[in-house]
Every structure is written in C-alpha cells, then in structure tokens.
C-alpha cells in the first residue's frame, strides 16, 4: 500500500494516474463466459474447517464454497454500502473540510472502483447461484446483508453527527481484503479459477487505493475541532469494532436459513446437514475461535490481525477494544 500525504497534490495526482492506468475493466478484463467449477473450493480452510472439525471431504468443499460466497457477499454488500453513504461519508466531509481538487478526484475514483468491485462479486454470486440451480435472491437469504440493516442505519447516523466509525470500518475491511488474497494465493491451483481471478483483480485495485480510508480518517481527525469531534476521535474506533463484530456474527448466523435451500443442490444439502455439527460445538470454543483463529472471520472482527491499522489508531489516539491476540490457524490444501 502506497502512503501519500493528504496535502501533497503532486503525490495524490500521481497515485490517481497510476490507479487509472492500471485499473481493470469489468467487461473486458474478466472472462464472464467461464463456467464455475463446482468441484473446486472457493477458499482454503484450516484443519478444523472453520467451525466444523471432522468434516468429510465433500463437507469441506461445501464449507469452503459457502465461506467463499460469504466473503463475496461481504465485499459486494460493504462496497455497495460505501457507495450508498457516499454523500455523508465523502461529499459532506469535503464540504466541511476541503483539501484540493486532486484529493476530491482521488476520492471520486475510489467510489468508482468500489462500485465496480461490488458489481463484479454480484455477477460471480449470480453465476454461482445459477450453477447450483437457485436464484441470486434465494442465495442471498443465507448470505451477509448490509442494506436496510441496523448496521447501515447506525453508520449513517454516526456520519451525520460528524463521526468516523464508517471510515474505521472501511480502513480495516480494506486491510482484510489484502490479507484475504495473500491467504488464497498459495492455493491458487486448487481454487475455483474465476473466483481466484476476481480476487486477484480485486486485490490489485485495493492495494492501490487502500490508503484512501486512512487519508479520510486523517482529514477528519486533524481538521475537526469541536468537543463532539473529540468524542468521535476517542470513541468511534471502539464503536466501529462493536458494529463490525455484531454484523459479522449476524452475517454468519444467516447461514441457518440454508435449510430452505436443502435439496436444491448437494452443496446446500450438505451444508444444511452440517448445521447440527455446528450446534453441537462447545459454545466457548466457537466464540474464542471466532475472535482468534477462524480463517477469514477472526481477521475481520479482530483488528490485532492488522498491524498497520492498529499503529494508525494508536497514532491518532483512538481507543480500541482490547481484543485477544490472534493465533491464525494454518490453512491446508483441499
């Protein structure tokens, strides 16, 4: 991730130029005619298959696929939410704290890229749904949602009151997306090719624009000056962590609705059957794994996975929830 200064118009201009030059096209850079290989996993899992120790090979495949879809839906939903909150998160902030035409352009391009990413992952989910004989709308009932949730309502209210919780979440999620590709890359040969290609392209652009949320946070935190702003500066990171943890737990909880899809494809049948395994797991162990070692999940809720992020939070003087030290479970080949 390239770090630039908020007030260095030449560096901002160079960064934007690079983003435009190397950006990919939704229509031309991805071969959407490639059929989805349902025999391949979407993500690599740990020995315990997330929360399903002892899962069979077929069950591991199903868990990998639903986890891959949950990740795709999370990217799609979060980036759509970003675009929906653009006025409050970007337009209103720059109206209050103008910087330069270059910074405005960089931000506008950030939102263009996020819209593209969201659309790319939506297309993938649609293809996957069709390949498994269901509609996207049916599939979405078991996948994470942000629109019309309390999470989005809260983030909007926080932004309207001059808060930063939204940008804290964006900054951490962007870091998570970078980690995600690094986790997938060693298993490239086994992973479903279109899914991997999509993540590779997503990673490239995220890596180029991952500094933008930090610039927004820096802008808000260094230019805002009222007592209310001070409270946001101190408390909004913590609030964002609570919102993000609750959202992630809720998003995983939506997979309970898989029972409705059972029978429509062997993947969903296997997953519906596995709900019982999950329910039999000791709750404390599941809870601890959720925060410390569950691949793709613990790194989303526990910011201690992201050193740069935590260093920035410390530098800004924001208070973080004392999450436990992470102990990522090693991923294994399918």
């Amino acid at each position, binding site marked *: 991730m390239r770090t630039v*200064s908020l*007030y260095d*118009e030449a560096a901002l201009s160079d960064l934007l130029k690079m983003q435009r030059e190397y950006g990919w096209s939704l229509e031309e850079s991805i071969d959407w005619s490639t059929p989805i290989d349902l025999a391949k996993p979407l993500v690599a899992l740990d020995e315990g298959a997330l929360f399903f120790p002892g899962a069979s090979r077929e069950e591991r495949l199903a868990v990998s696929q639903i986890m891959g879809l949950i990740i795709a839906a999370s990217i799609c939903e979060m980036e759509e939410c970003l675009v929906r909150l653009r006025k409050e998160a970007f337009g209103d902030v*720059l*109206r*209050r*704290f*103008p*910087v*330069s*035409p270059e910074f405005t352009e960089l931000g506008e391009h950030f939102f263009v890229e996020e819209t593209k990413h969201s659309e790319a992952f939506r297309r993938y989910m649609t293809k996957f749904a069709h390949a498994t004989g269901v509609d996207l709308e049916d599939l979405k009932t078991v996948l994470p949602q942000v629109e019309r949730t309390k999470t989005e309502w809260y983030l909007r209210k926080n932004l309207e009151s001059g808060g930063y919780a939204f940008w804290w979440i964006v900054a951490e999620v962007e870091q998570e997306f970078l980690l995600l590709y690094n986790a997938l890359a060693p298993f490239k040969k086994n992973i479903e090719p279109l899914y991997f290609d999509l993540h590779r392209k997503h990673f490239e652009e995220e890596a180029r624009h991952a500094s933008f949320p930090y610039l927004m946070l820096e802008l808000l935190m*260094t*230019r805002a*000056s*009222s007592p209310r702003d001070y409270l946001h500066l101190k408390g909004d990171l913590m609030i964002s962590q609570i919102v993000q943890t609750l959202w992630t737990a809720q998003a995983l909880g939506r997979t309970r609705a898989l029972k409705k899809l059972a029978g429509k494809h062997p993947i969903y049948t296997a997953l519906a059957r596995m709900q019982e395994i999950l329910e039999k797991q000791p709750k404390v162990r599941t809870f601890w794994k959720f925060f410390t070692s569950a691949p793709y999940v613990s790194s989303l809720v526990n910011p201690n996975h992201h050193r740069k992020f935590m260093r920035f939070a410390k530098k800004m003087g924001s208070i973080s929830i004392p999450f436990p030290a992470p102990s990522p479970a090693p991923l294994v080949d399918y």
Partner: protein
Amino acid sequence: MVEAKVIRGRATAWLQENSADESTLLLFLHGCPDSPEIWQPQLDYFHAQGYTVLAPYARGIGGSAPAQDRQRYGLDAIALDHLEILRSVDPDGHRKVIVVGHDIGGIHAWKLARLLGSRLAALVLLNAPDLSQMARRLSQPRQLLKSWYIALFQLPLLPEAWLARWEPLLIARAQKKTGMPTDTPVSITPFLNQYREAARAIPEVLKQNDTPVTCPVLVVWSKDDAFLEVPSMAELGRLATAVTVRVIEGNHWVHHHEAARVNALVNRFFKEKL
C-alpha cells in the same frame, strides 16, 4: 520599483513592475503586520510570466502616509485608493485585473473584487477571509481563540500605548511562535485603525447580502495557520460561485515560506481557468 502618487489628498505608494501594455494587472494586497516586500517572490515570478504586478503599501506603511481621519482606513476608502492605483496604471480601465490578498489584505481583495465587475479576471486568497466570513466565525470558539487580538485592537488608545512599549517583543514572539517572517519589515500599529474600521462595518456587512463573485476564485490555505481556521465550502459558497480550494502544509505566511509552491499553484490556476 516603488511608485508614488497623491491619492485623495494622501501620499500613496506601491511596488510596480510593468510588462506589455495590454498585460493583465496583478494586484497584491498584503496583510498585517506586513509590507508589500513580503510579495517579492510573487512579484518576481509573475512579472516574469508577463503580468504587470502591483503591490500597494497599506496606509501608514512605507511611502503611504498615515491619515488622521480614521475613515480613511475603512473598507470603502481603501478600495477607492486601490481603484485609483489601478487607474494610474490603466487610465482607460480596459485591462483585466487579478486581485491577490493575504490576511486582512484578503478582506480588501473581496471588497475590490465586488467593485471591479467584469474587469476582474480572477481572485486569489492566501489565508485570507472576507469580512462577512470572519464575522460569521465569531460564534466559533476556535476562531475566537485565534482572534483575541482583534478584540483587543478595538479598545481606544490602549493598543497604541501597549504597542509603543511592547511591539518589538510581541513581534519577536510571533516570529518564534507563528512563523511571522523575520526578513521583511513588519509593524502592527499602522493596522489598528484598519481592524477598528473593519469591525465597525460588520453589522452592515451581515445585513447586506452580497451577490457572489462570479469569476474564478482560488483559495490557498495552509492548515497550520495560527490566526485563521481553514474555511469550509459552505462558507466560501456564499462568497463566490466558482471556488477552487487548496489546503497545504504551512503556517499563516505560506506565500513567504512556501513561495515556490504557492506561485506554481497560482500560476497553474491561471492557466486552467483564464
């Protein structure tokens, strides 16, 4: 070189470098406690770019004689002086004018901009507010903390007495704490009446709804200004219809300490907008 003329009964001086006969006039208005010499890097740079550059001395500074009548320090009187300087260079009034203001010079720049009408090609503000903008900020605690000295200047006689004794010490402190230049002449006393007259004009300025300036306006503001908060677009939107804002690193005297960068930004703005 220094030009001088008696304008409306008072000796008035300004720095001037001529370019081609039809060249655009670039008028630089300095702030407190500066003198036009602060603009030297800009005068050299823009003269080399083909502009005729002018930088008047505020009344009571250099060759501009002080006035007994306090109204000569009012916004209208100073704007008339500036118009007269422009007339002495361009008697027919058909050359385009760009006004650049810093600090309280920005208040005069906004005033003059509204009087120049279609002659005004652009307006540039460097850490410089409009009077109405400043008046509306009086409800902001941070701006109030930064502007305590303006309230002090409103008292009769006391500031003069205070500055007569302590001015060198105050200036030395400001040079250390706020980045005030040490290599150009500075003096606060000649500006006291400008601040008093500006304050007197506030009720009227707040009542009248000035039509926003329609020419391209560039606002360059350093983020670590010890005297002025960085403006919002809402503030600037009331004053002009086409504003470009650039916030950069630096202190209140950004055109002095970051002269090359400011010159390049302003020149780029002229090339893009004019």
